[in-house]
């Protein structure tokens, strides 16, 4: 009986591990978070140092590029050449979470920049953008991992 139970437990762990690896195969790639963070810093630098028109143009370009890339990267429906993950294992709300998070991060960037500016710090926009970029690089993968864990639990 003890052998049966430990064997069953080991088998269940193996099943979970194998399925998690499959989900990893279509996970949001790290370069996406680095690209997003890099873009954030560039916009912060431009807001500080470039003319307003250049800053606005760069923001529009950044938004357009992100809009082109994000659906494919975040939807989970982009197919690895090696497999096609079942739809019910992919949380289709991830793009919504990321979009909502980006709005929140815009607010955080503005808030931090305003506080730094009021405090008399030099280059408040750059510092605020760098602060948020760190949040993106660290928090992005954690967000997708949490969403993935929830999807696996519900499957």
């Amino acid at each position, binding site marked *: *009986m003890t052998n*049966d*139970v430990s064997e*069953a*437990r080991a*088998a*269940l762990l*193996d*099943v979970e591990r*194998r*399925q998690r*690896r*499959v*989900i990893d*195969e279509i996970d949001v790639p790290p370069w996406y978070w680095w690209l997003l963070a890099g873009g954030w810093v560039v916009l912060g630098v431009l807001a500080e140092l470039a003319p307003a028109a250049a800053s606005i143009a760069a923001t529009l370009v950044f938004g357009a590029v992100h809009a082109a890339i994000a659906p494919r990267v975040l939807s989970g429906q982009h197919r*690895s*050449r*090696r*497999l*096609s*993950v*079942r739809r019910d*294992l992919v949380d289709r709300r991830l793009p919504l979470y990321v979009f909502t998070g980006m709005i929140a991060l815009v607010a955080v960037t503005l808030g931090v920049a305003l506080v730094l500016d009021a405090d008399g710090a030099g280059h408040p926009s750059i510092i605020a953008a760098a602060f948020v970029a760190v949040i993106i690089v660290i928090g992005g993968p954690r967000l997708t991992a949490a969403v993935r864990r929830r999807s696996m639990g519900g*499957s």
Partner: protein
Amino acid sequence: MTPRFDELIHPATRLSVVAILAAVDWADFAFVRDELGLSDSALSKQLAILENAGYVTLERPVTDRRRRVRAALTPAGRAAFEGHVAALDEIVNRATAAT
């Protein structure tokens, strides 16, 4: 899902193959092979057993001028896997409740 211990699926390698296929619509032969660290012949043997049982289908689409093999679970295979996992859960839960 009704628990149903499936002797055909239970061997460790076969259970791993089916666990991977249960999470996908299809997977490349090479992906499953690499994930499990098996040789081509070892995986072919396992897939043939599962295919003969009606648990797996193998497709051979031609892409990039290369012949690739894709494996997928059949509805019967998926039901057998889910029943087997439910049976394993039941074994663990019964033991936990008894202690």
